[in-house]
């Protein structure tokens, strides 16, 4: 079947399961889903002809019709394996095949003023409140995946931290996909009120077969509030993954994002943030590609108000036949004087068949600004290898050490101890660790 034929089947499939999707009684959501589905029907998934997708071909996704998972079809899950990823000392909310699992989640001891609940229940309890957030940070017209997600989402998480509340533990959202050829579509709203503070960890895992996982998160960081988001993407090796995080920052708001893209056959991550007056954002990312992985990271920072600061560092390590794509765009509006922005993208190519495509962009309409970006693509430094060899380290070990050090800079930034250890473990599992002695890590 051609891509068009596959895409055109989704609306028919939609009609079959429509009644089972959450928020049936919410009229604005019904309208939104219909509009989004209509947009997807006419546009399909993004094509290479679109500038934002010129290096990422998603036609593989269009070769298959992924089935939505309705409630009674949720797959069986090996609870033990889930525990590997579950962080101690965190509130956990688990989504299995795109549906909230109360049994696996643990929200014990959450302050009563803080709301962390699944989107299906939230839509029943607070439909009017949610309307204020939905599509405020991103329109379904953004591109095919966002529209697809808006039409199909089966669940998600709603997090609301009221003003001046500081969460004592992070909230971890675990996405698990258990079945081949299924799709998991989730939609999240995270809103942090004035002067509140929170940390949220998103973990993506799944089975070894092909599946499609999409997640769209809309984030609202209030005045003087502080939010740190961690994303650990460890999808199965045949998985297709799309995640979009769209952030609105009020004045003086602080937003940090740490993105670790390790898994999936084809993974794309979008981050966009609109900066308020004197707000700060920091985007960090590490992508590791091996085998035939294609990992694409797109970020966009909109400086809309004066005095805001943005810092961005993305690093990529690409081996075997992997392809890494990075696009970082910084837009400084005419009014956003005194902006300070720095962006860096560093890529390490380890094999003849690996490829790195990178596109840092500056679009500046104000004059009193300091903006810079830098990109490098290259190999390990021969002099550093020679130095280590002169100190009796064999070449293979020297290379491993330097590659590890290159990647570890990003892991090192993680301040939550058990999360740091977990990421480190995942990093080492993916690269030759021969000679990297655990004790000095």
């Amino acid at each position, binding site marked *: 079947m051609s891509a068009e034929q596959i895409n055109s089947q989704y609306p028919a499939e939609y009609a079959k399961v429509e009644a089972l999707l959450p928020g049936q009684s919410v009229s604005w959501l019904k309208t939104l889903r219909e509009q989004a589905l209509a947009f997807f029907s006419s546009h399909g998934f993004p094509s290479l002809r679109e500038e934002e997708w010129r290096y990422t071909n998603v036609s593989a996704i269009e070769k298959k019709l992924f089935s939505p998972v309705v409630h009674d079809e949720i797959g069986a899950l090996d609870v033990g394996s889930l525990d590997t990823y579950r962080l101690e000392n965190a509130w956990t909310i688990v989504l299995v095949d795109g549906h909230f699992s109360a049994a696996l989640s643990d929200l014990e001891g959450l302050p009563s003023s803080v709301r962390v609940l699944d989107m299906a229940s939230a839509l029943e309890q607070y439909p009017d409140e949610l309307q204020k957030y939905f599509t405020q940070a991103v329109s379904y017209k953004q591109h095919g995946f966002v529209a697809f997600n808006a039409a199909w989402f089966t669940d998600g998480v709603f997090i609301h931290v009221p003003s001046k509340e500081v969460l004592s533990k992070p909230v971890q959202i675990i996405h698990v996909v258990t079945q081949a050829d299924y799709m998991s579509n989730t939609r999240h709203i995270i809103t942090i009120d004035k002067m509140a503070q929170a940390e949220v960890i998103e973990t993506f895992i799944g089975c070894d077969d092909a599946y499609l996982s999409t997640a769209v998160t809309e984030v609202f960081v209030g005045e003087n509030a502080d939010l740190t988001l961690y994303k650990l993407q460890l999808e199965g090796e045949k998985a297709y993954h799309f995640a979009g995080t769209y952030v609105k920052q009020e004045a003086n708001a602080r937003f940090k994002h740490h993105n670790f893209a390790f898994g999936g056959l084809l993974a794309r991550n979008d981050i966009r943030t609109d900066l308020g007056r004197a707000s700060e954002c920091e985007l960090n990312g590490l992508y590791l590609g091996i085998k035939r992985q294609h990992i694409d990271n797109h970020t966009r920072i909109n400086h809309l108000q004066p005095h805001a600061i943005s810092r961005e560092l993305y690093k990529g390590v690409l081996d075997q036949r992997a392809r890494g794509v990075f696009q970082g765009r910084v837009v400084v509006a005419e009014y956003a004087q005194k902006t300070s922005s720095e962006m860096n993208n560093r890529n390490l*190519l380890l094999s003849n068949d690996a490829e790195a495509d990178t596109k840092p962009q*500056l679009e500046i309409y104000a004059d009193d600004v300091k903006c*810079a970006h830098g990109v490098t693509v290259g190999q390990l430094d021969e002099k550093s290898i020679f130095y280590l060899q002169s100190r009796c380290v064999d070449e293979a070990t020297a290379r491993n050490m330097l590659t590890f050090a290159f990647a570890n800079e990003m892991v090192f930034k993680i301040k939550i101890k058990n999360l740091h250890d977990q990421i480190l473990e995942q990093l080492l599992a993916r690269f030759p660790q021969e000679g990297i002695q655990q004790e000095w890590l």
Partner: protein
Amino acid sequence: MSSSAQEIDNLIGQKYKEGFVTDIEVDTFPPGLDEEVIAKLSAIKGEPEFMLEYRLKAFRHWQTMKEPDWAQLNIEPIDYQAISYYSAPKKDSDKPQSLDEIDPQLLETYKKLGIPLDEQERLAGVAVDAVFDSVSVATTFKGKLHDVGVIFCPISEALQEHPELVKQYLGTVVPETDNFFAALNAAVFTDGSFVYIPKGVRCPMELSTYFRINAANTGQFERTLIIADADSHVSYLEGCTAPMRDENQLHAAVVELVALDNAEIKYSTVQNWYPGDENGVGGIYNFVTKRAECRGVNSKVSWTQVETGSAITWKYPSCVLLGENSVGEFYSVALTNNYQQADTGTKMIHIGKNTRSTIISKGISAGKSQNTYRGLVKIGKNAENARNYTQCDSLLVGDKCGAHTFPYVEVKQPSAQVEHEATTSKISEDQLFFCQQRGLSAEDAVSMIVNGFCKQVFKELPMEFAVEAQALLGLSLEGSVG
């Protein structure tokens, strides 16, 4: 600050110095473009059969194409049927053999432009192939060049005298199907320069051409082809000024460079066409396709450009580095003021082993202008040990302008080293204050800082151009920051 704001207005408001119109009778086609026009054009030029075929092929392909819209530019729709595709000084059949025979009014024009054709020969040691509205009217130093075997002549003449050379190379670097404007150029180009440097020859002088758009409503379609055979060297200078006009004029040139084994081509441009008035009315549309192929081992091509004119600039001088150890360089200063728009940059395509490229781009935006750097660095699978260094700096003057940087980096070879750096800022208050505190006026301080900002590029320009380029920058920018 307020006194310097006044100065900014004064200086930015300076009138275009080169604005004047020469009143000469011209033999001009009525506006419009079809196959008949192309056939007539080809016949007037007395071109060989293959050229007409080439033009018609390009025209047919052009008709199937759409204007590109991906650039960060705001372009008023262009009516290609409202343009006249040929204009020549009337005394075409009776070409002047020496300077004495040239229309004195024309000579006067050149004088105003500062091209002392009659005395430059001895003083500057530069051969000038002056193009006045599409037809070459004078070529000097021919004898000297002829002695060493260098061919430097209008491309229309080359088509008569060396058709086999033109046929062999024309359209091999920029095919007629390459892009919308290149296809249009291939169909209707009227004239341009042709340079052939034979094996082992180091061209004894800098080659120079001045292009000038004169008759109103005449699109100018220049075609330049430079071939540097093995072990040769040539430095080519291109400079442009145009008189003041209210209607937009289209310029779609194509420049092709071919460097064979161990050959080196240095191509320098100073572009100062009419940029439109302070309200953005008028000005030249400059849509140029420039590309070089380093076909041989150790070949080298260096592009240097100073872009201060044109209402809209759409230009990406590129290097295809095929030969092993070949080198590509791109040095650029692009200055935009008032409502000017520039989308310019380069492409470095690394195909051969050990190929190296350097990109230094300096953008200065003032007034309400938009200045964009757009570049591609592509390292192919076989380009072992390829090396690229890119630096793009932008300077903003005033809070209504924009400076944008869109680099593309594609690497398929792990032994390649690619670095890209870009910064955007305004002139630092501290630097200005320091200079003023040492007794320099605000104007001089800014001029000094801007010149320093561009120095890396200016030092690549040949002497004659470096002086002109600095004067140009000074004229448009001095003291406009405060």
